[in-house]
């Protein structure tokens, strides 16, 4: 595991106080919550002031120009090198999820996730890896297509191995189980997932942010 010896410094951004306190109580002891924020402005200020390792970021936030989590990431662009964002949402909408990932979040988990799982996800993100929930993996597969197709830009398609990894994650496998099933190391799985994340963020294929609407045409 990628747990750091010093506690991972975290800022929680969510507009629901109940959820924030619940999450705080759920997080493992090696994760220290520096601050909480409830709006876009508060979040940007808190991130700038505390320079946390990880920001747990709700996708839907009041304030700002109404773009929620995306705006927080955009507003914290200066910290993006040191601060990682992990998106949290109850939303099922592909547009919400993919847009926040494309804004720069390193992962996405649903709010119904357990305390242990979220602590694990925080450690993973802090260690520089990407965190994919089964649903996000499903979105990725849907967006990039599951078949091997010839495309000009390497960013526009997933390699066979990446496809396999995404499929297993969508099936509910943990990284460890993926590694075991594919006879590769966890490190390799993490590399594949990070590569997929990078493609998801950089690819212009189908204008991925709008793809939620487009995909109904497929």
């Amino acid at each position: 595991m990628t747990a750091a010896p010093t506690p991972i410094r975290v800022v929680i951004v969510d507009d629901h106080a109940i959820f924030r306190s619940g999450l705080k109580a759920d997080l493992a002891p090696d994760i220290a919550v520096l601050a909480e924020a409830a709006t876009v402005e508060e979040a940007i200020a808190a991130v700038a002031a505390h320079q946390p390792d990880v920001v747990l970021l709700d996708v839907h936030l009041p304030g700002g120009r109404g773009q929620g989590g995306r705006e927080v990431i955009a507003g914290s662009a200066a910290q993006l090198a040191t601060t990682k964002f992990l998106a949290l949402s109850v939303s099922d909408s592909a547009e919400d999820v993919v847009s926040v990932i494309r804004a720069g979040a390193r992962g996405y988990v649903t709010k119904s996730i357990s305390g242990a799982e979220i602590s694990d996800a925080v450690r993973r993100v802090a260690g520089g890896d990407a965190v994919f929930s089964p649903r996000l993996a499903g979105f990725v597969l849907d967006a990039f297509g599951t078949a091997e197709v010839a495309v000009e830009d390497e960013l526009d398609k997933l390699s066979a191995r990446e496809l396999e990894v995404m499929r297993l994650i969508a099936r509910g496998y943990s990284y460890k189980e993926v590694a075991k099933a594919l006879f590769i190391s966890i490190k390799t799985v993490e590399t594949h997932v990070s590569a997929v994340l990078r493609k998801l963020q950089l690819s212009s294929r189908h204008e991925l942010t709008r793809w939620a609407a487009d995909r109904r045409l497929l």
Partner: protein
Amino acid sequence: MSAKMYRSQQRMVAGVCGGLAEHLGIRVGVVRAVMVGACFFFGAGLVFYGWLWLLVPLAGDRTSSAGTLLDDDGNPRLKLFRPAQGAVVEDNTTTRRQRIPVGFREVLIGGALVIAAIAIFGGQQGWALRLGTLIPLLVIILGAVLAWMQLDNTRRVGLLNAAKMNTPMAMLRLGGGVALVIAGVLVIVAGSGSWALMWTSVVASLAVLAGVGLVLAPWALKFWREFQEERAGRIRETERAEIAAHLHDSVLQTLALIQKSASSPADVTRLARAQERELREWIYQDSAHSTGALVERVKAVCAEAEDLHGHAVEVVAVGDAELGERGNALVQAVREAVLNGVRHGGTTVSVYIEAGAQGVDVFVKDRGPGFDVATVPADRLGVRESVVGRMQRNGGTAEIISSADGTEVRLHLPHEKPATEEAK
């Protein structure tokens, strides 16, 4: 006799006569005859008609001016702005669109006839009516009518749907009307004086217009903003009402149920999950997958399993497929597998559906204690018959992999027609 006068929807021109007839309790024909007759008294009928047209709202306007007009029944807006209303409004506009050309043509013909009559009548009386003044006057009137028709349209539809107001046709009509009026005025002015005089007067009038416009612009802007705000507020209120109605029907009921069964965690979880699912469906219905048969049905059976056992079933779907009879078998097999998962696994069950070019794959995974597939007793039909047997009978395959970390059921159903020989 109705208390308030509205212009009729069943109209020839603008519905004034119909509305007046309804208001006074007289037959429409009589009102129309009187109106036409009055036209011959120095055009009194025409003026009266135009006046009523401008001032009397159309019957359908009641909803749009509800901001000031509170309706008879207690809470008007909640009812007035139910979605069904939108459909009605839409209907009005379409019927209107069909009606306008007819009404407009009749106005044109009628107007021409009236002008001709006046010209003939005037000629007999020895009035020196020159065509040079008559035609510009005609053009001005035509332009004004065009612009006003637009206003009429705007007033009725615009309040409900501002987007409609900016249709090219509407802008064209308004612009055409204004252009006609200006052209008419110019011709009249030009006819009465020299060109040099006309230019100075044009410049002077433009200056006056610009000055007045400058003074009035902030006001107009303010009114426009207030109007927009009010409209936005009303739309928000509509949405709020709709959401409130939905929440009342679903969430509040569920919360009440949860409070009642607070002593049973299993019930609470189940109720919460069911409500969550229902709410998600409602919120994300627009961005949901096209309702292809398979995913929808798998989701339905997963929801059923969730309700039965209170464990979450997460469905992730990629692509979708339409499957007939064999689809039924697949869905039934999935159902059995999911039920087994929630029953014996006792944890969250992940379902992944992938419908690709090769066929449909479904994976059902739980994190329960697992079991040894080989040692399943023969009398346990669940796995052997309902899952494996069913898939095989329909040309598919089923695999069950179980370990201490959980169980995964893998179902594969190839597409029927092509490439049956390369069955995986």
